[in-house]
């Protein structure tokens, strides 16, 4: 492998990892705080993508500037968080926090099944492709290979900003500290007057919005079609579990590992590319079942 090919594989790996991380971030945040592995996260990702396509399609039809596609991504993400994340937590999850883990998992599984059909009823089965945002940024050529600015620069930048922003938010803002306190010890937090219900609701909305944002950011690069959520959820599970559930920095690193592993495999041994995420996951989990950065007893975020 020449240095050029090495660099190319590196670029592709990072761009891919960025997207996976954004989705995994919401999943790991929800798990870290609420101890719920949200299978419906995949559906929220897909709906974020569909919503972006619909909104930017509508904006284009109204003759608005293509650059408006970017704020519309944020709008879709917030909508997913508020209109779906909120009710899911408020109406369903809130009623089962005292139930066994398996029931909590199954509630999100049921929501996943319902949302899969909702997507099809709302948007049909036809694949959508809406690349306005990506085209607005143009291309760059590196080492004779053309990349889109969107994938090479914007996605990694957004991922890095989210990572740093989330760290700052949790450690240096009041709400973040409330969340951390509730995570450490829910009863103690309640006894000093923290409204744990509100914290959970807020966390779930943020997590859902991150899933939606992942979908929104993915939408200009890929076909939006039924079933896209089911694939993404397995991949982000792999990232989150490998990192250790609830580990935000760890998720970033594992997304990079999986992204780079996959892109190098395409160069070196394409046949193995699809096995990479699961192989990494099993290799890590069989040595450290709590994940690379997780600790099996205390939960930490």
């Amino acid at each position, binding site marked *: 492998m020449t240095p050029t090919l090495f660099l190319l594989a590196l670029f*592709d790996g990072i761009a*891919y990892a960025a997207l996976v991380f954004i989705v995994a971030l919401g999943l790991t945040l929800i798990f870290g705080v609420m101890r719920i592995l949200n299978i419906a996260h995949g559906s929220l990702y897909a709906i974020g993508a569909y919503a972006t396509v619909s909104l930017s399609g509508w904006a284009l039809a109204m003759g608005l500037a293509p650059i408006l596609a970017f704020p519309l991504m944020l709008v879709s993400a917030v909508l997913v968080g508020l209109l779906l994340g909120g009710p899911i937590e408020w109406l369903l999850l809130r009623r089962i926090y005292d139930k066994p883990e398996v029931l909590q998992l199954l509630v999100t599984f049921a929501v996943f099944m319902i949302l899969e059909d909702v997507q099809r009823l709302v948007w049909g089965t036809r*694949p959508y*492709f809406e*690349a306005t945002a990506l085209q607005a940024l143009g291309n760059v050529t590196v080492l004779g290979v053309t990349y889109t600015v969107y994938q090479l620069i914007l996605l990694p930048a957004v991922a890095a900003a989210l990572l740093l922003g989330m760290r700052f938010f949790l450690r240096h803002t009041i709400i973040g500290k409330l969340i951390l306190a509730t995570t450490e010890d829910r009863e103690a937090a309640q006894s000093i007057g923290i409204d744990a219900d509100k914290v959970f609701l807020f966390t779930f909305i943020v997590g859902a919005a991150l899933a939606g944002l992942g979908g929104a950011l993915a939408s200009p690069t890929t076909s939006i*079609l*039924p079933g*896209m959520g089911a694939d993404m959820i397995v991949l982000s599970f792999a990232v989150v579990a490998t990192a250790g559930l609830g580990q935000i920095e760890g998720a970033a690193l594992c997304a990079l590992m999986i992204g780079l592993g996959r892109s190098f495999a395409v160069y070196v041994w*394409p046949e193995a590319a*699809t096995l990479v995420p699961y192989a990494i996951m099993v290799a890590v989990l069989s040595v450290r079942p709590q994940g690379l950065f997780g600790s099996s007893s205390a939960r930490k975020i």
Partner: protein
Amino acid sequence: MKTWLLTALCAAMPLTAAAADKPASLKVGMTTFLTGPASVFGVPAKNAAEILVETINAQGGIGGVPVEVSFIDEGAGAETLTSEYRRLAESGGADVMFAAISSGNCQTLAPLAEDLKVINFMWDCGTQKIFEEHSYKYVFRTQANATPEMLAAVIYLLKTHPDFKTIAVVNQDYAWGRDSWDIFRTALMAMKPDVKVVGEFFPKFGSPDFSTEISRLQALRPDVILSTNWGGDLDTFVQQAAQRGLMNSSTFVLPLAESSLERLGSSLPSGHIVGARGDHYFRHPERRDDDAFKDFMARYEEKTGEISVYPVFHTAQAFAALQAVYEKAIAANGGDWPDEDQVLAAMAGLEFQGLGRPVTIREDHQGIEAQLMATSVQTGDHPFATLENIMIFDGADITAPVGEVSVDWIGGLDASFLDQVGVATYAD
């Protein structure tokens, strides 16, 4: 639902009818994808089936008997598919089954149809293995298989780009992606042995991202890139390749791109090779002035807001075969309604015409269907690429002869084969 039960009850009552009397309706059970990624084919097929049944019944049905169609979702999982198939074939009283889109489902359902003794038209699946590995009494195919589809692509490529040196492939990692590349590569190596395969990529089915493959291809710079992807995977691959300029440096061969033309819009530039799994094109050069064709295209567009794609044509062929075989069997039976054996007898050598050229059923039950290949062109007449330099190949010349295994037969071909295949060429 209620009428269905009622008719099922009536059909079950032996007193009401002697065997050869006309039934109240001719029941068809059709498996198609209503959910999952392959619903990009399944839903158009269902829409087409509804229009076709309406048309047939408006003209008085088949031999005076109205056609009734019910659908089974191939996306609901294998257990549901097989149990529903059986329910329709046995207690549901279906006379003819149309199954399936997925090759895997065809392989499951063909032996089942044989055991249930129900006539089954394989209306869309691609695998060539079914009749090459087994012979069936009740199973027929109203369309071509992967062999002529891939051969047509190779021949068109060699006729239009005789001098290319290198090729890479990006196919979906499942049976169709692998098998189609097997056939394509064998044919290419037989007819043009000096071509070099510089890259073989099999990203997983439903892959949301081909960036790495595209970077790799940009570094490899092959003359030709083959992809038998379909649906969302094809759209994603072509869009990402177009975004990054790969389509300007290599010629793409996309044997299933006819079904994505409208969705790809302006992303599919001029000059790439497009196939249609048969002679299927909403502006079919030999059929577009035909009234029935024009009427159907207009009705389909009115109903769905989209242009017709190949699964629509395959559905039309299955219904045309149904109509033709019953009419033939009725005629052979002196105008009376035929029993199942008479219908089976009429299948031999049956010729029928859907929305393309006529199709014939060969002695091994394989359909012989012409193949259309063409080059994409952005004319500005439509908001998407249309086709030019269209070639329609005679199906009989490019289908593996009865009793031959496709890959062996193709391996024995050579460059002279190119000139032996019957072809009609149209500018657009």
